[in-house]
């Protein structure tokens, strides 16, 4: 068939199919309320099928095919050219409420940035003070990879996955995992409960079925000893590991960073358009958590009983390859700065005959501390962070998403960061000191960057005849007290400008004849994009109708 005939058919098919698929997705027929603080995406549904994505196939797609097809995305370039006419290549995140926040859902729970999580809770992690209790029965060894690992049942019958630190790097992976996991969890994401452990050989015994080889090769004490030699061991023979509590429910596969899960009617929004996923980029950048492929996320199906309807809960599964760590040892220097196949940098190196100097070569990443690895903060640039391979949701992020992510990061106080670092229980005090300092410095860089891109006025409320708000840069200590210029655009009458010298606007300054008004806030001395607040007249007072940052 000639292309001239194919194109109209494809166009017609696309347009015809679009409403049909949306009808199927909206099968639960829930009402829509943009002011809600809870996105009810946990309604009972049938269990989706377990689907697994091939790792190498996924990397081939994300690292090679997608970047190249994106490079030749002609409509994208047309939309870019039409930018001055109002066209946009990127769409705003879909799941934000009128306050420009993400409602609680099976993906995300508003935590530290709306209510400070006590440092003790951060130190303990998602499941509080739960730790694996010896003796441990090894039920399944992990044969792949360079570091040891195995599934165990502890004395209370709880299932854990134990993973070891690389030889010569005690507490490297376990420490990075403990810290990054707690901070990511406190920021609002769902994660497993992981704790660093020091495992004594005498606390390990082998499950009888495993020893007899009922489901494969027999596994004996000598095999376990051999396995343990692949990880770091202390002088007393104990192993430096971390324990990860099995997630509740039944796994139904990794999560695509691009598309929604079509067999889950609760999953309405394309994942690349979810604010919490786009904003996760900023958090991962802060933590230098570069290994963010789809397989690092996991959907679990939770139902009262097997076979009954339930709902899917979405988890960030593994943030262990972060800070200065990698499974085999210290993070390779280019991680976090380049994709594995970074076509732009490859071209730069090719045409410069290898004389292009990459930022990671200038960064002083080698800390010389075995339990820290390679982790820098001096040349860290928050928006230049690169993951293992391009990720659809991260690529689609807008300034508003970046600002929101920065809000999560900057919500952590020095004390909270210190508490998260304490959770690693580093034997080497230099590690505690260095990582705490690095995370504080990186947090401040995140704040300075994103709060310089988008005017960081937020948490608007109406009380006592005033519109009150917070300047996050000032609250965080990244900017001195400053004044604000507010452009007032009423529904009728002329625009005007108000100057504020504090984070309050007297509503009496607004004309009572107006039914609605749009306020655009800019911070003095900053050329960041404005923050917009729409107010609606409600009787004698005003109510917040919409807040949008940097759009």
């Amino acid at each position, binding site marked *: 068939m000639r292309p001239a005939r194919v194109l109209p058919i494809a166009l017609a098919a696309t347009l015809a199919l679009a409403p049909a698929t*949306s009808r199927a997705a909206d099968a639960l027929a829930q*009402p829509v309320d943009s002011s809600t603080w*809870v996105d009810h995406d946990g309604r009972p549904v049938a269990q989706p099928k377990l689907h697994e994505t091939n790792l190498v196939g996924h990397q081939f797609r994300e690292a090679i095919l997608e970047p190249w097809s994106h490079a030749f995305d002609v409509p994208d370039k047309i939309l870019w050219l039409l930018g001055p006419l109002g066209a946009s290549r990127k769409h705003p995140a879909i799941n934000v409420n009128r306050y420009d926040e993400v409602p609680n859902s099976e993906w995300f729970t508003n935590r530290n940035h709306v*209510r400070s999580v006590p440092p003790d809770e951060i130190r303990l992690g998602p499941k509080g003070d739960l730790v694996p209790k010896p003796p441990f029965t090894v039920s399944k060894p992990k044969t792949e990879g360079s570091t040891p690992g195995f599934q165990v049942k502890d004395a209370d019958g709880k299932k854990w996955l134990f993973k070891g630190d690389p030889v010569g790097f005690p507490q490297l992976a376990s420490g990075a995992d403990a810290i990054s996991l707690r901070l990511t969890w406190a920021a609002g994401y769902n994660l497993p409960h992981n704790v660093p452990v020091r495992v004594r050989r005498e606390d390990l015994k082998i499950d009888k079925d495993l020893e007899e080889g009922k489901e494969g090769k027999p596994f004996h004490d000598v095999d376990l000893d051999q396995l343990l030699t692949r990880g770091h061991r202390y002088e007393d023979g104990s192993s430096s590991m971390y324990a990860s509590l099995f997630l509740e429910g039944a796994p139904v596969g990794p999560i695509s960073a691009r598309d929604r899960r079509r067999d889950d009617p609760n999953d309405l929004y394309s994942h690349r358009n979810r604010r919490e996923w786009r904003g996760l980029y900023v958090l991962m950048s802060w933590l230098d958590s570069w290994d963010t492929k789809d397989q690092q996320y996991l959907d679990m199906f939770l139902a009262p009983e097997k076979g009954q309807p339930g709902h899917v809960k979405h988890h960030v599964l593994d943030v262990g390859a972060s800070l200065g760590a990698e499974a085999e040892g210290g993070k390779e220097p280019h991680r976090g700065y380049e994709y594995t196949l970074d076509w732009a940098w490859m071209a730069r190196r090719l045409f410069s005959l290898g004389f292009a100097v990459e930022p990671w070569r200038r960064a002083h990443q080698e800390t010389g501390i075995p339990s820290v690895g390679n982790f820098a903060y001096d040349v860290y640039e928050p928006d230049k962070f690169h993951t293992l391979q391009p990720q659809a949701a991260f690529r689609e992020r807008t300034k508003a998403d970046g600002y929101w992510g920065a809000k999560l990061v900057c919500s952590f106080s020095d004390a909270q960061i210190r508490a998260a670092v304490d959770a690693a229980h580093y034997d080497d005090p230099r590690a505690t000191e260095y990582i705490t300092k690095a995370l504080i410095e990186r947090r401040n860089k995140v704040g300075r960057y994103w709060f310089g891109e988008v005017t960081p006025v937020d948490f608007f409320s109406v009380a006592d005849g005033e519109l009150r708000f*917070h300047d996050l840069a000032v609250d965080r200590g990244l900017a001195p007290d400053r004044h604000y210029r507010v452009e007032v655009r009423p529904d009728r009458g002329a625009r005007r400008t108000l100057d504020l010298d504090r984070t309050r606007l007297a509503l009496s300054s607004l004309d009572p004849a107006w039914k609605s008004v749009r306020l655009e806030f800019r911070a003095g001395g900053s050329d960041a994009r404005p923050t917009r607040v729409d107010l609606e007249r409600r009787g004698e007072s005003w109510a917040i109708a919409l807040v949008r940052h940097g759009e």
Partner: protein
Amino acid sequence: MNPRPRRLAWLVALPLSFAIASAPPARAQEARFGDSTWVAPYPIATESGDPTTDGPRVSRRDREPVGETILRTPFRAVFYPVRLLARGVERVADKVLPQFKGPPIRLGFYTEVAKLTPTIAYSSDTGIEPGFEIQRRSFREDVPNIRIAGGWSTKGQRDAMARVHSGLDTTMWGVGAEARYKIVPNFRFYGIGNDAPEGAHSIYRDERGDISVFMRVGPDPLHRARFLAGYSSISSAGGSHGSPALQDVFDPTTVPFFGHDSKVFYFGAGGDFALVNHWREPAYGVHLRGDVRHFESSDRTNVKYLELRGDVRGYLPVFATRRILALRLLYDGVNPDGGSAPIPFYRLPASYGEYRFLAYHSNQFRDQVLGIAHVEYRWVITRGLQAVAIAQLGEVAPNAKSLRIADIHESYGIGLRFPLKKGTVVRGIAAQGSEGPQFLLIAGSDF
């Protein structure tokens, strides 16, 4: 109390209390974002809600604007095969390749003793050549390594080899034996001498067998002596699977031993000596390699000659080890003993393999002496992949004294170099010479 200090106390306390009372409300009294007391003015800060209960969604399903859909649809249709490929690879790879969970790629049958793997090769001359390889790697000093391989191409090329050797790279001693057999029905021949244009191309049938024993002494591959002895038989005849035939282009009487067999015994010694920073991928240092072999006919042909091979490699980093200037000088010369019959044409040094003139066909040049000067600049463009810019000068001559600068064949090229884990290097090169461009994809040992 003494009245004087009391008055002083009032003098201090009164202004202080006035100052405190008249000061604006301190910002520190408000909860600040990021403080331990921070609570946002949102209901969600105190009541988290339950997403599993009945309630609204924050938005409808996201939809692309219709205008954008119209704009994108033609391009989506055109690129649909690519998308299909991407999704297919992601979804189907597990089913198609059950063992293909991640590197290393494992195809074939693996047992604890050995592995049997299929092999496949292709060139325009030989066609597709499926084959096999059986390999047993012992990783132990006292257990021999064995490798057996073979193949049969669609254009009649057949080859087989068997090799057994003991000793590891880390052991001082190693001994082994090797047998090879190969028949090529359309081996290329361009004549003898430095003036062998591409247009002189002809083919003949080349069949050769070789068996040898060898011993090596040395602590590592960079400091090692080698000794070997063997027996070689080669025959030539009119070819097939191509044209024109050798005898149609050249006078067979001018091509020594065309149509005749040659059987020789040989023995020799060689060695490696290197001072480099890395044995596989050096960034700086020097590597010297040499071999000398004596050949003597075992039939009545009275062929006796000495073959000398020299290989000098130098590596120089250009301000950093990711940029390397690599230099290589290669020499291969045969020197007939007094009274020897002419050396068979198929035993003369020829421009193939490591000795290939890059912008010319493999085996295009052959004579008693062959020399190459090769310089290349390598630079890393991504982890494990280098770009190379190459300049190469090559010449053949009847003897070393006849090598002249004016007769040199020049090759200039650019390409990519991809070192694999086990010492094999894959190169893709576009080279330009006086006869036009050549595009090469080479996998094998490299310098």
